């Protein structure tokens, strides 16, 4: 067996692929981070919401031929509503409870939805064959679906930041995540903010799902891997630190890519975890700082 010599162009290719993946992680994790920041709820069902977004895009594409990127205007509102309903019915009851309740509750919701999806749509793998292939830039292959998804993910992340910083509701969300009680005293209706936040988080997960669907297979359990990745991202970036989630996402993409280049796919997961524990222990507020 010849050994793989890692060349500059391979490194560059991996950095590019890693960043492209990271942009998506950032978008998905931002949703989780918002929910966690405002309510201290770890939403284990985040990946399942992502799956629902992916199926929305898949069905719109398959049945009506709608451009998957355009379908975001459907999947995000749909998931926003799903999020609001989940919050209203279930999650609001565990906002003040110990973390065990919210972990288990959202896990229960997650396997419930995933299995209903399995019953409704079967466990078959499906794919949205919309954009395939790549642009070749010298030795670097830029995957078309990943590049477009990356750009869209960046755009959506940017819009989310604008929303958080420029609108009254966005400011209220940030205030609530900084100090819930003070926000309430200042006249912010935190129940309403919780509702909007969960909807928004779910909407972002749904957007992530729509974007994932053009790259990878769509199936009921597709979201699982994104849950743990999102945890990693918000720990790296700092919980409740929203720009942190963005840089955390890119960082995770890079680390994963490089680890699987220098080591193997299996060990890249280990590296990511070691990073997680070190960050938790050394800088529990995340690399960029955040709330404990």
């Amino acid at each position, binding site marked *: 067996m010849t050994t793989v010599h890692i060349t500059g162009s391979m490194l560059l290719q991996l950095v590019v692929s890693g960043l492209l993946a990271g942009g998506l992680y950032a978008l998905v994790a931002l949703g989780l981070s918002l929910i*966690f920041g405002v309510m*201290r709820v*770890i939403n284990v069902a985040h990946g399942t919401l992502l799956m629902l977004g992916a199926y929305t895009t898949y069905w719109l594409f398959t049945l009506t031929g709608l451009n998957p990127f355009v379908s975001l205007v459907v999947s995000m509102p749909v998931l926003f509503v799903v999020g609001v309903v989940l919050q209203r019915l*279930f999650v609001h*009851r*565990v906002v003040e*409870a*110990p*973390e*065990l*309740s919210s*972990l*288990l*509750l959202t*896990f*229960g*919701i*997650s*396997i*419930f*939805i*995933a*299995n*209903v999806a*399995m*019953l409704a749509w079967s466990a078959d793998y499906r794919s949205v064959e919309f954009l395939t292939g790549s642009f070749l830039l010298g030795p670097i292959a830029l995957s078309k679906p990943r590049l477009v998804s990356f750009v869209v993910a960046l755009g959506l992340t940017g819009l989310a930041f604008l929303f958080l910083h420029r609108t009254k509701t966005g400011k209220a969300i940030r205030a609530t995540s900084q100090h819930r009680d003070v926000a309430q005293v200042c006249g912010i209706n935190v129940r309403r903010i919780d509702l909007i936040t969960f909807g928004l988080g779910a909407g972002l997960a749904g957007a992530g799902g729509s974007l994932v669907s053009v790259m990878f297979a769509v199936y009921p359990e597709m979201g699982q891997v994104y849950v*743990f990745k999102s*945890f*990693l991202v918000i*720990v790296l970036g700092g919980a409740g630190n929203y720009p942190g989630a963005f840089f955390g996402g890119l960082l995770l993409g890079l680390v994963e890519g490089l680890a699987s280049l220098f080591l*193997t796919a*299996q*060990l890249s*997961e*280990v590296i990511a*975890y*070691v990073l*997680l*524990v070190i960050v*938790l*222990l050394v800088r*529990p507020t995340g690399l960029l700082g955040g709330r*404990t």
Partner: protein
Amino acid sequence: MTARAGVLAFLLVAVAGLAVVPLFASGYHVTFIIQVFMWMALAGSWNLISGFTGYVSFGHVAFFGVGAYTGALLITKAGWHWLPAGVAGAAPAAALALVIGYPCLRLKGPYFAIAMLGLNEVVRALVSYFEGFTGGGSGLSLPPILSIAPVYYAMGGTAAAVTLLTYRIITSQFGLRLLSIREDEVAAEVMGINTARLKLYAFLLSAAFPGIVGGFYAWYASHVEPLSVFPLLTTITMIIMCLFGGKGTVFGPVLGAGLLSVFQELVWARFLFVHQAIFGALIVGVVLLIPRGILGVLQQRYQLPRSI
């Protein structure tokens, strides 16, 4: 005192009844009860750290998996008898708990849960990676077991040991201190309780038993592989069983494991395609409707002693 005697008598009858089951029951019923014992021991172990201190071990199956691999390796590579090999599963599980618990038990709230979830993923990845030793993704095959009755007693003994230990802890000062950590850790520290050390002790105990259960499981299942001994769902199942019965109680995990195993078996046999969805709904129901668990509710309603 009579109530106490009554409980004791009931327990004795129950244990005696279970002890004679393998003599007449079918293989299926025996394997079913083995699994109930397994869940009792696992839920009871989780209870020791999370039920008492409130630190949520969201990757507890890692200790089970490590025990399973230890048992399988000792049996296949070192030629050990399965009984000592299974018991030996406790050592590496506790060692792992020491290595990971020492730093991570300082983490507060959800961060400990996330770290534990990650731990499980990592142990699984490492087991797959060192394939010369562990067989990698193909796992390790053990000789088929010809008689399951011994496993029945071993698993039952482990479940009983966990329950007995929980009783000893709950009636000891150690147990009270652990509960004080759950209620208010800062206050506990102010009162001079060395919370770091106590949490670590509880964590070691709660990791050692899943190690033993895993060791027996390896022998019972005749095959271990990363995907079958490290599933997240196993952690969730032990948590929900403990919660359903009543966390922080002695018999909560026993009751929860028993009832939910029967429930799962029946639902699973009857509603092929929806059993997972029902399990999901059940989790939501338990968390929202009876977060204290059956025994918790009964304790509050009838002012039962804490040590049930």
